[in-house]
């Protein structure tokens, strides 16, 4: 199997989806000749033409609204928002339209669209380029929110997102675009959109994360194993809906859980998972469910961003504390 970076896997999945289905169109700022500022759409315009790979005007509300209109007529638009910090103008369309078109028309019109955007900090980018506000999106009924953490999962989940009959926000961990490499077979096989991935099994502790933070989380699991702690690592992968069964099953087994995410702590999606565990598996818990997260402040610019993001050290500290709790 050939090796691909995460962003190459995205590119493969997009090409495959466009090849398979003439209704798939890609649109966004600089997705055409330029192939996207991260090269996620490189080569697509050449291959599928400027009508199906469309450079839009600089207008995010428009991009999301076009997707809704196209999708309602049976196309499968895949919009790109250049950075997650620019997704907020899409929220009206996502909340008031995309997520509820099917429900409010009782199935008459539907909205099979995907909105892709790079997610998270850690690439020393300018202001507003380091957002990780997935929790806002995961609160919206009718939407799906997906975030891969490896090239294979990026490929399979993106294919699934494009094929899904409902709107999906697809968050791509910017920090892993080139850093994550792995074997990706371009076989057109999609992954399920409601199943978490157990990346590592263990009986002492459950570590849950998604997106780029899986990197530090896996490193923590490795380091913990050297200390004799067998950590199970779950890549949540789909945040909405998310795979409660896998999460609850793991915690029932280990009794201890640390959730790691990059977003600000308060109201982050970790809260939902912790709350659910506390509600449904209280008697299994041997220690408080602990969150290791970004801080409740504006993501600082490059010089300080490393202190904002959960570090291996912070994960280790939390994991040790949880394991020692009694």
């Amino acid at each position, binding site marked *: 199997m050939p090796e691909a970076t995460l962003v190459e896997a995205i590119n493969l999945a997009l090409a495959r989806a466009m090849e398979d289905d003439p209704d798939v169109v890609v649109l966004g700022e600089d997705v055409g000749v330029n192939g996207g500022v991260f090269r996620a759409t490189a080569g697509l315009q050449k291959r599928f033409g400027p009508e199906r790979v469309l450079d839009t*005007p600089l207008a995010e*509300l428009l991009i999301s*609204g*076009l997707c809704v*209109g*196209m999708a*309602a007529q049976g196309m499968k*638009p895949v919009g790109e928002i250049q950075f997650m910090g620019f997704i907020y103008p899409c929220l009206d369309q996502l909340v008031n339209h995309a997520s509820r078109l*099917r*429900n409010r028309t009782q199935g008459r019109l539907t909205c099979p669209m995907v909105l892709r955007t790079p997610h998270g900090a850690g690439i020393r980018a300018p202001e507003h380029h380091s957002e990780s506000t997935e929790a806002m999106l995961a609160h919206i009924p009718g939407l799906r929110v997906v975030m891969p953490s490896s090239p294979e999962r990026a490929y399979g989940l993106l294919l699934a997102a494009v094929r899904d009959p409902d709107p999906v926000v697809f968050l791509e961990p910017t920090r892993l675009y080139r850093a994550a490499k792995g074997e990706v077979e371009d076989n057109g096989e999609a992954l399920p959109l409601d199943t978490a991935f157990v990346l590592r099994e263990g009986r002492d502790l459950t570590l849950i994360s998604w997106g780029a933070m899986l990197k530090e989380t896996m490193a923590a699991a490795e380091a913990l194993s050297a200390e004799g702690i067998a950590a199970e690592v779950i890549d949540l992968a789909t945040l909405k809906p998310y795979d409660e069964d896998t999460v609850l099953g793991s915690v029932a087994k280990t009794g201890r859980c640390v959730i790691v995410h990059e977003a600000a702590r308060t109201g982050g999606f970790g809260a939902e998972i912790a709350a659910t565990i506390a509600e449904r598996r209280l008697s299994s818990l041997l220690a408080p469910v602990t969150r290791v997260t970004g801080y409740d402040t504006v993501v600082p610019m490059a010089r300080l961003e490393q202190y904002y993001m959960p570090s291996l050290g912070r994960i280790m500290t939390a994991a040790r504390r949880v394991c020692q709790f009694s």
Partner: protein
Amino acid sequence: MASRRVNQDLPVIARFEVRHRNYVSPDGSITRPLPASASDANLLIALYRAMVLLRLFDKKAVALQRTGRLGTYAVSLGQEAVSVGIASAMREEDVLLPSYRDNGALLWRGVKLEEILLFWGGDERGNRFSGPPHDFPFCVPVGSQAPHAAGVAYALKLRKEPRVAVCLFGDGATSKGDVYEAMNFAGVHKLPVVFVVTNNQWAISVPLRLQTGCETLAQKAIAAGFTGEQVDGSDVVAMRAAAEEAIRAARDGKGPRFIEAVTYRLGDHTTSDDAARYRPAEEVQAHWKKEPIARLRAYLVAQKMWSKADEEQLAAECHERVEVAAERYLATVPRLPETMFDHLYAELPEVYAAQRREVAGGHDA
């Protein structure tokens, strides 16, 4: 006439103009040669009937609301010619993207009266209506349907289908970036879409002069790179002709058009509103003189196309239709509560199924 000139000594590199369309004056007399469509008596009568039905239907809806049997409702009183005139120029396969006040367009396109009542009665099934299945439902967040119209039109163009998207919104909506972004995009790709603003002078209590510093709304299209025209929106003949022309141009690949229909909202904004709080009775009174139904009737009567007997028969017919629709609406059994989860996703994810079961189990809660 509006015009902006500064620095008369600098060379002019672009010029634009806005034209105005009217055929039938408030007293029913003709102001200029009529368009071809006006020679079709059946069409004129159909337009007339549609407007009368709409007005009567609105009345019934308000009565239902006042007696607690319908939710908030927005009447078309005074502006019936706009959505009826526009819809009449569309083909079945065209795509309508209406605003919440465009009952007239929906009815013309085959949506049932009782379906409209169902929607305003608080039942989503009103949006799964008998009109063309590709038409959009009423849009409540003002202006947010305009980007959909651009998206629809892009899809139609991409698929090389000779169909047109028609998007209706109010004067207030022209202040929303949504509308501007959509129109600008339509201009880039010369999309088959017609944007129509029903300029009824008011956005709830906000008068047009606080909505924009523009002399006309039609000129908004200049910023999007295409043509805007101002139409007497209380003259259904003019509305129909303008719509016909714009839709034909869009269908023929000549790109988008923008129509400003100048009319007046004679009623309250909705049943929740009391317009007397913010506008003088004299203003409303003055506009009653221009309203579209009396105007077309005057013309039809003068042309001997319409008689008192016709009028009486129509009134009776409309009354009957409206009453039957109201009864059907009132007889509609509410959905089961748990159906609030249906059509949320194509298939309800297992993780939410428990919630659906909870609702299903607690009907008496």
